[in-house]
């Protein structure tokens, strides 16, 4: 199908002859150019200032712990011994769990809304989904505490232990709070992003693509799965990474349901801790200088993780584009 995916260059606006700076200024082009340039540059400035501040203020902690900060498993504010390992682990595990749940769910919902549902129904549901994306995270946290946690303790947890309990992933005591609960709540939070963005992207796939596939004898589902989805996959991946970013940085909802215990445990039912949650919990009462510095270094680590994951995402997109599909 990749043969049909040729790009048609948009019409290039005719270039006028060389004009003086004043002329262009009079037209507003130059002004618009400068203003938009400044705004674009401000993003760079803000990002670098953020990194600079985190770097400078984490000086004490970096000097004392060095790279060992990444694999030290202790977090002891009283004896001033700090390590990020349990928080990095918790952040990654909850984000992965949430994506494992949210991606199939979100993608399937987006395909239904874009391809199969009547347009009116699709628009109505899309409106509700956008509303969901705007709900404050503390509300999801409350939903987690009052609905997901009791369900995990009394229904889901025991069921998992009965069926998959032989796996280390589902071993140990089940308190209702833990990695899996946090992952589920995060999944509920990020699924609207995946649905909303993926649906928009799927809707932009040209009708000719579908018609061509159908004309070749593909069924409706084959046309959707083998033509429309691959065409839109860059955008779909974009939605997944947007979801990942939110899952990595989410604070309130996670801290309410994860159990807040900085230990690395293989069981998903066990309590854990994330970077964003520990910063929110301990920053206000951090009296010691080294303690504060270590919390700021955690912020730096979270930034680094986001940076690396986004980089990997870019690479993945480049790699899939090479394999064919629409180079959007």
């Amino acid at each position, binding site marked *: 199908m990749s043969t049909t995916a040729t790009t048609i260059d948009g019409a290039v606006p005719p270039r006028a002859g060389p004009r003086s700076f004043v002329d262009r200024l009079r037209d507003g082009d130059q002004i618009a150019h400068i203003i938009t340039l400044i705004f674009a540059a401000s993003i760079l400035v803000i990002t670098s200032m953020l990194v600079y501040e985190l770097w400078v203020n984490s000086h004490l902690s970096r000097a004392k712990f060095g790279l060992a900060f990444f694999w030290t498993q202790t977090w002891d504010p009283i004896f001033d011994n700090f390590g990020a390992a349990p928080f990095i682990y918790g952040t990654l595990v909850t984000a992965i769990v949430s994506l494992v749940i949210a991606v199939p769910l979100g993608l399937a919902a987006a395909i239904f809304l874009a391809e199969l549902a009547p347009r009116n129904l699709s628009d109505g549901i899309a409106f509700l989904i956008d509303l969901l994306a705007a709900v404050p995270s503390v509300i999801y946290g409350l939903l987690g505490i009052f609905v997901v946690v009791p369900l995990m303790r009394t229904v889901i947890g025991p069921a998992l232990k009965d069926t998959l309990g032989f796996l280390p992933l589902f071993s140990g005591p089940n308190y209702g709070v833990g990695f899996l609960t946090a992952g589920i709540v995060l999944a509920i939070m990020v699924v609207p992003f995946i649905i909303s963005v993926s649906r928009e992207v799927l809707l932009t796939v040209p009708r000719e693509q579908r018609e061509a596939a159908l004309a070749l004898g593909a069924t409706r589902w084959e046309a959707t799965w083998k033509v429309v989805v691959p065409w839109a996959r860059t955008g779909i991946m974009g939605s997944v990474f947007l979801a990942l970013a939110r899952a990595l940085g989410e604070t309130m909802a996670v801290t309410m349901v994860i159990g807040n215990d900085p230990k690395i445990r293989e069981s998903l039912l066990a309590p854990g801790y994330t970077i964003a949650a520990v910063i929110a919990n*301990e920053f206000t009462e951090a009296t010691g200088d080294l303690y504060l510095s270590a919390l700021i270094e955690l912020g730096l680590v979270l930034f680094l993780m986001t940076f690396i994951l986004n980089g990997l995402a870019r690479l993945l997109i480049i790699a899939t584009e090479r394999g064919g599909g629409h180079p959007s």
Partner: protein
Amino acid sequence: MKKTALSALLLLSLAVTASAQSDKTMLLNAAGATFPYPIYSKWFDVYHTQHPEIQINYQSIGSGGGIRQLLAGTVDFGASDGPMSDDQLAQAKFKILHFPTVLGAVVPTYNVPGISGGLNFTQKALAGIYLGTITKWNDPEIAKANPGVKLPGDDIVVVHRSDGSGTSYIFTDFLSKVSDDWKNKVGKGTSVNWPVGLGGKGNEGVTGLVKQTPGSIGYVELIYAISNDVPYGKVQNAAGKFLKADLAGVTAAAAAGAKDMPDDFRVSIVNAPGATSYPISSFTWLLIPAQIQDAAKRDAIKGFLKWMLADGQGYNEGLSYSKLPKPVVEKEKKAIALIQ
């Protein structure tokens, strides 16, 4: 983190502009502990209506933030649930005085299937549970303090605060006092490296986890327990008596613990002597610079402190805070003269 810092900055800048604009009202900025915030805001509000020329703007950003802002000189005075350490005082460019304002206490709350009445906790039992050495509800250390109660053999699920808080400070101060193991392995502070247990955010987070989890035990601020009808157990005090915490018991502990009150008021009153002293309680402090250059500001702060020690204490019990014992009030009144 960013949000807190940003909003603190924003509020601070608002406060600064406000103080620059108004000529008649004197605006004092203060920041710190969240635990005494309800009574502080009541005091500052009442004081402002009685003395319209003085307005005190208090940001409850946490003890750590209060100490840092005081050291940085961005607030006129701070507030903290734990006294400043010698190191912190040495760091300060100016001398800082501690003034106890109200008292707080911490109570154990639990959820044991089949048990409704108040359980008794020995000091050893609480330390053992939080150290992870006592893991079952029918452990002899718990059973011997509760004759006639049929304790189940369930695992104990330990719950503690996940956010840094004065409540944790008081509780870990108590555990450090009664258990050498705790003192050497964990220590006392607003956040510690908990040997076991789940973390709940805030008093409500701990209460929520305890209510939902059979076999769990947690600790909450007494005021929170009283105003939300959270059932809680009795704790053995230094005299060996099991006491259910109430406001009077906390004041009794303060009176007993304050007998040898040091001149800088940095005193721990956990496990205070006396048959009526509730063992898990503490002062909370205002942190005031000893030297204040601006004479008008100095007089305003001194005036407020005098009022807080006299009339102000009358508002405590309405908000479920224990009153300061008389000897402490007298001693503080003398200490006000040290502000110059």
